[in-house]
């Protein structure tokens, strides 16, 4: 389903990684490991199509994601470093409006259920600027509850989360994989996901490798 071939990433004059190959099928998860600055986030952004790779190609259902374009985006749920939530809005407004922007149908009842699932019931009318970092991350994670998309790309989903929320994310990812979804996750913590196949990919290039032209 998701296939990366010979991916290469250049940042300024540095080559972060090259020759990254993997293939991920339905129900599989890729756990992306590597030191700080090894290019994990860059790889995820390449898989989303935000950053064009310096070399190589990302394919989804055997077609290049650049040709698929919106068709690919319709099946993708990307959770980046930033939470993509607005401090001025309440959690409820945030997930309703971001669902609209992502062209997801979400009524208020479903939104409240999603918030309950991530443990924010009772905070739905409080502006997000009054929430803690962990609670803001939970608002962002609510998308995983209500969006039904095939490919999850999660960048450090556990940052700022407490033990119970980490457990919740692991459960959500597990359910997603059992439904036949795919997930690519970077994290510094061990992922305890009960899935048949968790693959690991290590990004460990020698530092400051020169770019080969």
């Amino acid at each position, binding site marked *: 389903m998701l296939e990366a071939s010979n991916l290469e990433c250049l940042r300024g004059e540095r080559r972060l990684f090259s020759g990254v190959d993997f293939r991920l099928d339905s129900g599989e998860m890729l756990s992306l490991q590597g030191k700080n600055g090894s290019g994990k986030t860059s790889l995820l952004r390449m898989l*989303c*199509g*935000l*950053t*064009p790779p310096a070399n190589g190609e990302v394919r989804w259902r055997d077609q290049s994601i650049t040709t698929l374009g*919106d*068709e690919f*985006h*319709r099946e*993708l749920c*990307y959770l*980046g*470093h*930033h*939470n*993509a*939530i*607005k*401090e*001025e*809005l309440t959690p409820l*407004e945030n997930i309703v*409006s*971001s669902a*609209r*922007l*992502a*062209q997801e149908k979400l009524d208020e009842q479903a939104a409240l259920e999603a918030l309950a699932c991530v443990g924010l019931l009772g905070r739905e009318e409080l*502006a997000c600027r009054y929430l803690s970092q962990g609670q803001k991350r939970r608002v962002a994670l609510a998308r995983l509850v209500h969006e039904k998309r095939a490919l999850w790309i999660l960048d450090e989903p556990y940052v700022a989360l407490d033990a119970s929320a980490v457990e919740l994310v692991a459960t959500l990812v597990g359910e997603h994989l059992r439904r036949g979804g795919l997930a690519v996750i970077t994290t510094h913590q061990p992922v305890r996901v009960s899935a048949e196949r968790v693959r690991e990919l290590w990004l460990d290039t020698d530092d400051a490798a020169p770019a080969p032209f």
Partner: protein
Amino acid sequence: MLLLFRAVIGRDLRLAMRRQADVVAAMFFFIIVVSLFPLGVGPEPDQLRKLAPGVLWVAALLATMLSLPRLFADDYRDGTLEQLALAPQPLGVVVLAKVVAHWLIAGLPLVMLAPVLGIQFDLSNDALAVLTLSLLIGTPALSGIGAIGAALTLGVRGGGVLLSLLILPLYIPVLIFGAGAVDATVTGLGPQAHLSLLGALTLGGVFFAPWPTAAALRVALE
């Protein structure tokens, strides 16, 4: 696509309502700049009447410059822009919606303030009407063209000053036809030609500018 369009506008307007200070600040900037001119050049009504169109239009350009840097910067910083770029719709539509929202928040208040400020400059009723009309027609172009600069300078150091450097030269035609329309009314030539050209600029600016803007946003997100 229309749904997305409305969702973006609705969200931006709601956000603007939650932090009205920014909107009000840009409006007061406009008022203060315009009010400074009589203090600088003297209160003779004849001279003021001659200066009014140019002064009001230049002040409108500067007030727009003040609100432009935030057009995409907040969304860029908190990750919303990435999500918008990954939404299954052309990014150009999102940009167009944001341009419309920006005009409603930053452009329309200027249009509504203009007749009041025009009175300070002893403009006749006709001239006041044309001034307001020219701003109404021309300010959307300012939001549209400005969006290109806002996208190009996203996340760049010294972005605000750079934005003015990039965009103000491109505003010149709007300034010429906008202020020219009022001038033509005052001198009795009739503003129709100016206003039609201004309308053409706005149509061009609002409907073509979103595409280079979207391209620039993608470059900024890489």
